[in-house]
């Protein structure tokens, strides 16, 4: 039996190193390109993304307008480039907030255990069961539309996910002998958590951060699609898809451009995340 299983194991092997590099380079290039665009779009766009041009409505892609124009004659390509900024404002901030808060919550729950763990985790469960979209609508209705609100909404929905993973990793580390050795020399729980456990759940935290980043892009786009993001008319990707969806058959390029932009950014992040995760988890 052993021979058989061993044999099967040998057949499927991949050259981990090469796969790793291709994915990392491709994904990294995509993400980096969008980051540059988000920072420097005013210099890069051929037209003002907000300028109406009634004479050139619904132009198909061509040499003048590379990706055509929309119902107001705005240049789709310029709007696509300009749309990178709001998304890349919200997503990294939201991710960072979610990871920091979630890690803290997960570490505390895992390290202290007992009643603290029970209370914290049940609270998080309560957050999770509440539908995120409805929560977002309510929140925006109460607090108004702004980048800050978007960040808080997205981060809030990710905190429980991060906290659970970190808590699971903490529980594993907490049982290890080096933590017990620290307890034997009288380390207090807070110091145990910071000095002994936290450095060793770092991998989990990084993996969570990369996974959540991709999700955050998507969540930000979704919120703006629902009209909870940027004010109407702004070149935001989600909003653009939403605005132009009635013209889908007449001018599909107006939707395809922002949709593909979202997809390429999310895929780029996923590629980077996967390859980094492979490396971290191997080490």
């Amino acid at each position, binding site marked *: 039996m052993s*021979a058989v299983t061993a044999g099967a194991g040998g057949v499927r092997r991949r050259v981990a190193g090469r796969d790793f590099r291709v994915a990392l380079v491709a994904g990294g290039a995509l993400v980096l390109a969008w980051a540059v665009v988000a920072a420097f779009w005013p210099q890069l766009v051929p037209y003002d993304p907000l300028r109406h041009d009634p004479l050139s409505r619904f132009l198909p892609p061509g040499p003048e307008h590379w990706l055509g124009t929309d119902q107001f004659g705005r240049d789709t390509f310029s709007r696509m480039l300009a749309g990178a900024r709001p998304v890349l404002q919200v997503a990294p901030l939201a991710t960072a907030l979610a990871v920091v808060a979630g890690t803290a919550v997960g570490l505390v729950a895992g390290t202290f255990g007992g009643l603290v763990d029970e209370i914290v985790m049940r609270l998080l469960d309560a957050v999770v069961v509440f539908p995120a979209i409805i929560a977002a609508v309510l929140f925006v209705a109460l607090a108004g539309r702004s980048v800050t609100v978007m960040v808080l909404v997205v981060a809030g929905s990710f905190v429980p996910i991060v906290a659970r993973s970190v808590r699971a990793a903490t529980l594993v580390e907490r049982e290890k002998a080096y933590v017990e*050795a620290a307890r034997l020399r009288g380390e207090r729980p807070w110091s145990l958590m910071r000095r002994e456990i936290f450095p060793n759940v770092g991998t989990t935290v990084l993996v969570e951060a990369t996974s959540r980043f991709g999700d955050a892009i998507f969540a930000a786009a979704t919120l703006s699609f629902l009209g909870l993001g940027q004010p109407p008319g702004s070149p935001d990707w989600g909003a653009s898809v939403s605005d132009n969806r009635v013209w889908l058959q007449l001018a599909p390029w107006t939707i395809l451009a922002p949709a593909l932009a979202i997809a390429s950014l999310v895929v780029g992040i996923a590629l980077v995340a996967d390859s980094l995760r492979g490396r971290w988890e191997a080490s």
Partner: protein
Amino acid sequence: MTGRATGGPRLPAPREPVTRDVDLTRPRRPGQGENPHGPGAWSEENSHGPGSRSGGSGESGEGGPAGRGLRVTGLSVSYRTARGEVPAVTNVSFDVAPGETYGIVGESGCGKTTLSRALGRHLPPGGSITGGGVTVDGVEVPALSPAELRRWRTTSLAVVHQEAGSSLDPTMRIGAQLAEVLRLQGRGRAEARREAVALLARVRLPDPAAIARRYPHQLSGGQQQRVVIAAALATRPRLLVLDEPTTGLDATVQHEILDLLWALRAETDAAVVLISHDLALVGRLCERVGVLYAGRMVEEGPAAEVMASPRHPYTSALLASVPRLGVSRHARELAAIPGRPPVPGEEVGGCAFAPRCALADDLCRKRTPALEPAPGGRRARCHHTDRLLATPGSPFEEPSDAPGAPFAEPLDSSDSTGSSGSTGSPLEPTGPADGTDAPSGVPLLEVRGLTRKYGRTIVVDGVDLTIGRAEVLGLVGESGSGKTTLARAVAGLGPRGTGTIALHGRELAATVGRRDARDRRRVQMVFQNPETSLNPSHTVRAILTRAVRGLGGSRTAAELAARASLDDHLLDARPDRLSGGQKQRAAIARAFAGDPELVVCDEPVSALDVSVQAGVLRLLSEQQRLTGTSYLFISHDLAVVGYLADRIAVMYRGRIVEEGPASRVLAGPHHPYTASLVAASRARLDDPESIRLPAGEPAEEPVKESAEERVGSARAGGITRESEPARARPSGWASRIRWERAAGRDGVTKRKDANERKGVNVWEGVNVREGATGCGFAARCPLRIEGLCDSVDPPVAHTGDGHTVRCHLDTGDLPDTGDLPRTAVPVTAPGDRGTRHDPPTRDAKAPGDAQHTPATQHARHTHDTRDAQDSRDTQDTRDKEDGSP
């Protein structure tokens, strides 16, 4: 080695196979007639007189017809890494005839596993065979196409990996997994299922039909290993590779698995390659051994001769690092091999072992020695074999007496400071490192009525324990006996429970969180698993510094590391760059950071190679002498405990069944459970000396007498039992094989085999008390008194010297294992000693049933509680089957 055993006049006919439908029994292997070791080949003179060997069996056992068996010629394996091609195995050649067992020995990282994987061509990614050939029964394995390779593996190869548990599919029942292997061989569904059960019976699992219905997690480690062996046998392999088949198992279970392999090798006709880091262990089971170092064969030859007179310093050092039962640290320090093997790819000019070898000189460092053939079918790769052989005895064993000895590795201050600690009676306070405030009459640690539970399971059951100042208390028991829970409770970890723990007569808080800084400093712990005991994110220096600060110690990290013989340059490394032994040294250094008075050592060496284990044990011993610290030292290995401990406590199912001075506990009279541990431990390694004994000299007579005396005396005690005369056994091979194997093989009855098969499981019974009163060992005890042992808690008997035994037997009736092996050289085989005092069970059976009384040779052969009744029944049926000719 088997040559001797099998060729001897007492060779019984091969046993009937356990089951008829899987008849894997083959006639004795062809090599039988041509015993390569002539009579007397085992005598001591042989070490330099190999010319007496009759047949030029050449480089290895080429006895079989041309091309039969395994032939490895010039095999080289390397891995592709970032640094380029790194050779892991270089130019290794050996032959294994069908039915022969070949041992491959070496420390971790010497290429053993790579070599074993290359044999079946299942190297891990990046590995490839770069040269040489592997031929199994004439099939060139490296030349096979993928399809042919697959077919060859199904029909001819079986591999047993180190961790049995991970070789089994956790979601499949045992029977189904085995049937799957058989189906691959082309059996029908129903047939495969039947054969699967038969295979389980062959590996002596009790109630195979029930086992077949279980899932892997419902079996103990030893049982899992048996299942994996059964799966390996299912293919009727031509080549069987066993990669550390017993590592990680309890000493007793280890012993049983080796025993099983010994039994099975007679039944299969495969070439067997057995891999281990423990030369002494493997040597007993193999005809020939090859010692691997840094991917090269450094010595090769007949196992007994290699063990008796090693021709390479590495072999010699490996042998010297094994603790022997009954040899205390006061009598002889263990000889560890300094340093570590080179990592693959590391350039070592000249002999790869030179940096660690005390015999090394400029020649060694400049020129790589060749593997020179030596007389007697041996080969060795050393420039200075002559010097090694010229040293009388083993130069590696007595470092303290011979300062120039190769592996002396002295710790400068240990000799002067140490003597005071080691000479005094262990119970007398010999002045711990710092002054204590308690009156000197009070022992350091006093545990009273300690009880710990996990859920409803009582793991530690009313334990009393005392540790004196500067005393090492060894705590022995099998896995699940509660010894770790007890140790953790002393350290203030684990679940809370009742009972008191007092230090210097003052009660300690039960949990470490409530102990004050002084108490925490006084009690420290060394953990079992070196992989988890150091924080992987911190450097060694940070770990030690933090411990010093936390415990209020006065030394620096560098001083602590130096005292633990940890190289300076490792201080700034993180634990992942340290080897297992180095990690454990760092953990020990950490435990000593605050000058503790008691260090709890929870199996600190059980995860280490034998050679590394020796170094860690020595370190513990030296630290103890140096600082006068007391230890609570836990192990499942009696020889290890015997080396370090002044007093030994034996734990079984949550209770201390025996406690006393180490020599008293080891020599007896002792508790029947201790007796079984001693027997298993003896069998594990009897000294290489015993192997050197001339062949075939029966030395059983006095033993037999004393056995009968004991039976008689027990009868006089008013207990009726059926006696069976102890049987004569050839000592020569009983010394290699264990007593119970001898019992099964000298052909007295088939019933014994059945009994043995069944007896096997009693060691692996679920080790949890089920709230019953009575002696926890009653179900497994060969001396139990029906109606008493299993219902009434045994009293504590004092036999003097502070030696207490918890047993219903009168002290005079307690088993007595007699002298320790070293003192008795013209030995009765260890097995004989193990059995001689063991009368049959006291089963209340009618005299007419005499033949059906399980002829219990030892504790092992009694019934497990759970299966007691039904195994007795099945045994009877088996008897009938087996009895029919």
